[in-house]
């Protein structure tokens, strides 16, 4: 009986912590969040015209855009032509996509995407539409808990299977009202094809695994 009691107690504590975190997030608290300790002020200045002096990440809500969204940095590991390299690049690319949803800035994914990726271009287009005319996106953050490079492919083209989990998306109009009904959160499998050249990796194709 003792082990089970301790498990219940632990679950309860975790539950309480989660509640506290949720509350601070909802209340637009200025407390720093442990998830974003490495915000670069110079980099975020390109994304948001007036970063707050403390440069604390604040997700978007019905009142305003996200602030000080951490700018994804291409890791060294993503600069090699290997299975590990394409995995690191895929993780980076989806961070850049997540950044585009949260900020409307698609320049990082544009830089690392080839012209013939239909899905990639469609994603950029819809993000552009969602940020036009003073609109902004609430939610839309992407996480990729599983990234698995396909072994044995290459040398110039490699593939990775990526689990893409995205938060619910609301598009808010300039006056803060909803532009349309929110898009549900999603959890999907996708396949990314990238080619490696002197400039590094570039996404050449992307599709959902159906």
């Amino acid at each position, binding site marked *: 009986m003792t082990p089970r009691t301790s498990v219940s107690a632990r679950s309860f504590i975790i539950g309480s912590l989660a509640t506290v975190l949720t509350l601070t997030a909802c209340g637009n608290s200025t407390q720093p969040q442990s998830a974003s300790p490495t915000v670069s002020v110079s980099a975020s200045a390109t994304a948001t015209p007036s970063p707050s002096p403390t440069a604390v990440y604040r997700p978007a809500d019905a009142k305003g855009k996200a602030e000080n969204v951490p700018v994804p940095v291409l890791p060294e590991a993503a600069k090699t032509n290997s299975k590990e390299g394409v995995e690191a690049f895929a993780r980076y690319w989806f961070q850049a996509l997540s950044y585009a949803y949260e900020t409307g800035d698609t320049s990082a994914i544009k830089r690392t995407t080839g012209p013939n990726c239909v899905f990639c271009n469609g994603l950029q287009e819809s993000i552009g539409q969602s940020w036009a005319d003073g609109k902004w996106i609430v939610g839309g953050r*992407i*996480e990729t808990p599983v990234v698995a490079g396909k072994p044995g492919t290459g040398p110039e083209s490699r593939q990775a299977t990526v689990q893409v989990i995205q938060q619910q998306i609301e598009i808010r109009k300039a006056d803060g009202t909803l532009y349309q009904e929110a898009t549900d959160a999603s*959890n999907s499998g996708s396949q990314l094809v990238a080619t490696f050249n002197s400039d590094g990796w570039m996404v050449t194709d992307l599709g959902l695994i159906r």
Partner: protein
Amino acid sequence: MRTVRDLLIGSLVFLSWVGSAASANAESTEPPITIGFRKSGVSLGSENWIRDPQSGEIVRAPLNHVSDDPNQYKAELQCQVDDNALDKKCLPGQVRCPPREPGEKPGTPVIWKVAPKAVSNPTWTDWKSGNNGPSCLYDQKPEDVLPRIAARIESDFRNLPVKAADLAAQPSPHTLKGAETNIFANAVEQQFDVTILGQRVHIVATPVEYTYGYGDGNSLGPTPFAGGPLPEAEWGQKTRTSHVYQQTGDFQVSVTTTFRGTYSVNGGPNMRIPGTGQFASPSQRVSVWRSITRNYADNCIVNPRGEGCPGVP
């Protein structure tokens, strides 16, 4: 002239705006945006990928690939603290499952989880139910009622009173030897609400393939094509499901429709039923006749004793 045309265009725009505003969002004056990773991928019709059943590799889907549900689901008991032990004292504030009928026992709340099938060791996220309400299981041993349903759902599905396709032929009931006879099926999606092991199970049966027997030893399929009716002026044209009889006589035409199914337990996600169900339609008789065409130089006034004229054997 130009003003009139502009005015007309203006009116058209206004009309379409009224239409979309009424259906979608009373405030919106702009078209809906397809936003989100999965939604964009589905709507763009970007090339899809599948897990190859033979090699297990992720490969490009063939052109004729019919998308199945890419997700897998599981239900977690809300009061579960580890895989084996059930804590009867659940945390306060959780969803309650009141008895469905007075005098019955209350149910056990469950949280449905979803993850993509194609990803190994995926992260599971909460599945969002249509009504956002609780999902409940009503059983003495709620932890294994879903596996028990999963084990029998395939045979339960095959025994459902699924209405088989309506079968028709053009021309009918008489057709001609050597001509294209258009034979087609009409099957519809059907929904069933049944009780399995005390749970309310909603089943959707969808026709996916057809196997035609033409009654003269020839058959077609299984094919995804149900075929369809032709306007009378086009009878005799070849269609995807038409057949040419080489003999005269009466033939029994038949079609067997293959249905796929999904099932949902007590409002949970629609899960694929393994396998398929075959449902045969009653056969239809087609009489195949021959036609003979002869040309004559005279009519019956010029040559009253000619072949085919009245009174001539």
